[in-house]
């Protein structure tokens, strides 16, 4: 009897912490902009996408319930990084996803390196994430500025549109978009006839558009984003600009804001849009049923990358960052978002990109039917080659 009680006590003492550990949820953090300019691109939609991924994984991984936590970084790197720090230090968040805004993205990826936690970037486009600022636990998933500029510029050059004029937002992001696009144009034998810089959040584009018009270039490339892009396109239409207008970073939500009447015929590169393939459509419709709007490439990327992460946790049998990262790199990604997608040594997830064209109002079949697939750009062509990466983790 005595012995039995002893074994029972010992068994309970040993089992208790195990049971407690098993019940502890696996936390995934969605750090995004919920109130500012990128709220439509990431925001609440990213939280819904992550919740959808958690539900599709059965709500549990390794017997632990999956919990999604979310916070608004308000586009302030210090708020973002202190929230992420708190998540890592006190709440045991295992992975942070989305990270719209490159300032926040880089800061949190650095923190992930310091704290040995995985960070996945879907919202930010800066190529610095996989070059100068790359980290062993950082993944850049959905897109980057290089792939967008390259896809669009290459396609138009092939059509014989070989003289370009750029309208560039006057800060690092606009600079890198313009550089990447201009390098491709001149590399393919085209000519860059001029570039004009405009300050961030410009409302009056008239003088810049006049310069673009008088340059005689066949293409006017807009190396800016969001509100600047929308304003630029609207005013170009009002001016009756005859040249081909091209956006170098366009989200579906921008097209929605412009309306098909204004945006029709415009070509740009994207990683996801629900009209492109049947699988994408299936995901888009499932997402729509929950959210009430179609997902952007960032939100689709959040779903796909969260799913990939959860599968890697399952395969690795733990949430240890090193083990999970190893599995994430060794397993190709095959879902609606990517076919044979691979995470490279610098953290870049390489997958196909798509060149799309905005439909004419008469061609659109519904309020969300706005794009047509023009060409698929294979991943190894779309993204900056690993040999050109400035990342210190890449062995050369």
């Amino acid at each position, binding site marked *: 009897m005595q012995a039995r009680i002893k074994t029972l006590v010992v068994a309970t003492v040993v089992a208790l912490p195990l049971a407690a550990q098993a019940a502890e949820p696996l936390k995934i953090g969605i750090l995004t902009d919920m109130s500012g300019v990128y709220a439509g691109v990431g925001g609440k939609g990213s939280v819904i996408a992550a919740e959808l991924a958690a539900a599709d994984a059965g709500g549990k991984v390794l017997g632990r319930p999956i919990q999604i936590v979310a*916070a608004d970084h*308000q586009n*302030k*790197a210090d708020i973002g990084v202190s929230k992420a720090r*708190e998540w890592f230090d006190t709440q045991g968040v295992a992975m942070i996803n989305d990270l719209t805004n490159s*300032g926040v993205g880089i*800061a949190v990826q650095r923190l992930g390196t310091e704290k040995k936690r995985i960070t996945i970037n879907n919202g930010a486009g800066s190529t610095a994430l996989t070059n100068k600022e790359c980290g062993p636990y950082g993944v850049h998933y959905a897109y980057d500025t290089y792939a967008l500029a390259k896809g669009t510029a290459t396609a138009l050059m092939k059509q014989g549109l070989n003289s370009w004029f750029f309208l560039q937002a006057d800060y*690092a992001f606009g600079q890198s978009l313009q550089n990447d696009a201009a390098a491709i144009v001149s590399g393919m034998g085209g000519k860059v006839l001029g570039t004009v810089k405009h*300050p961030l959040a410009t409302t009056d584009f008239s003088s810049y558009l006049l310069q673009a018009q008088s340059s005689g270039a066949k293409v006017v490339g807009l190396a800016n984003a969001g509100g600047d892009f929308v304003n630029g396109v609207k005013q170009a239409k009002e001016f009756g600009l005859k040249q081909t207008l091209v956006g170098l970073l366009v989200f579906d939500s921008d097209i929605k804001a412009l309306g098909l009447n204004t945006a029709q015929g415009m070509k740009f590169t994207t990683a996801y849009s629900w009209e492109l393939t049947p699988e994408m459509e299936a995901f888009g419709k499932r997402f729509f049923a929950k959210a009430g709007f179609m997902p952007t490439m960032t939100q689709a990327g959040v779903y796909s990358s969260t799913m990939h992460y959860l599968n890697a946790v399952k395969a690795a049998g733990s949430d240890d960052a090193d083990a999970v990262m190893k599995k994430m790199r060794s397993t190709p990604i095959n879902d609606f978002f990517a076919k044979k997608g691979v995470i490279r040594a610098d953290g870049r997830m390489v997958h196909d990109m798509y060149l799309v064209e905005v439909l004419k109002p008469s061609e659109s079949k519904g309020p969300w039917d706005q794009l047509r697939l023009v060409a698929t750009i294979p991943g190894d062509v779309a993204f900056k080659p690993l040999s050109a990466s400035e990342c210190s983790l890449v062995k050369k």
Partner: protein
Amino acid sequence: METLASPSASRLEKRVNHPFVSYLPWLVAAVVCLAAPFLIYPVFVMELLCFALFAAAFNLLLGFGGLLSFGHACFFGGAAYLCGHALKVWGLTPELGIVLATLGAGVLGVLIGMVAIRRQGIYFAMVTLALAQIVFFSCLQLPQTGGEDGLQGIPRGMLFGFIDLSAEVMVAGSKIPLAMYLFVLTLCFGGYWLIWRTVHSPFGVVLKAIRENEPRAISLGYRVDAYKLTAFVLSAMLSGLAGATKALVVGLASLTDVSWHMSGEVVLMTLLGGMGTLLGPVVGAVTVVSLHHELSALGSWVTVTIGVIFVVCVMAFRRGIVGEIAYRMKRSF
């Protein structure tokens, strides 16, 4: 009862006038601040301290000098960048980086102050805003600041060359960066003490006189511009101290720190807490920063909530939180 009450009351009066009592608030604050990192997340407490110092420095100019600057973010953020650059690129020790950044903010303060104090009221606010925007756009363009990516990965480094500020101590199951916390606490208390001394010095009295009636101060023979400029530069340097310390705490400096939103936020902190009171800006800063932090899970409701609080403050208690309490208790804090 009455016969018993009166001697004890006089004894109480004696006790109130005892010099110890005037130090009591400082002691309470010190105890609270020393206990805080064990109860609340320490990095957040350090951020609170930095913003409290920033608001207090701003209040020195607005509350006691009567000058509403709408460009204080340029000192805060400018110093953050300078400190970050000094630590990361030049490899200076943290104390040197902070001293350099504070002096840098002082130089910027002299330049902006010399132009701005020639005007009053709305014109003063506009001149400071315009000059701060120049600083903002310079930070956006300069390659050293990293543009919108921000200046990332600022090392905490070794204080005086031998105290490791990134070291963490295990206390009751949680890691606390004790050395860093004490360093930040010392800096912020030092800055706050300087403000307290300034307000209670003859200089502070003249400053208040200028605020109340400038022509009269001139007619009494005070060189008003020199006083205003000194107050402006002092406020700029203390804002710079707060910004540089914050850059060290969070390990980055970004455009947020220099943008006009930050200038607006510090006005909000000061007004909400109580303009012209010493404790007010601290309470205001803690309120606003905590709201930003705690409500960040609510998304767009952050701005709405802070807006509503500000409206309530303006409608119901215009003196601010501390100002209103002080008015009801007929005491100054």
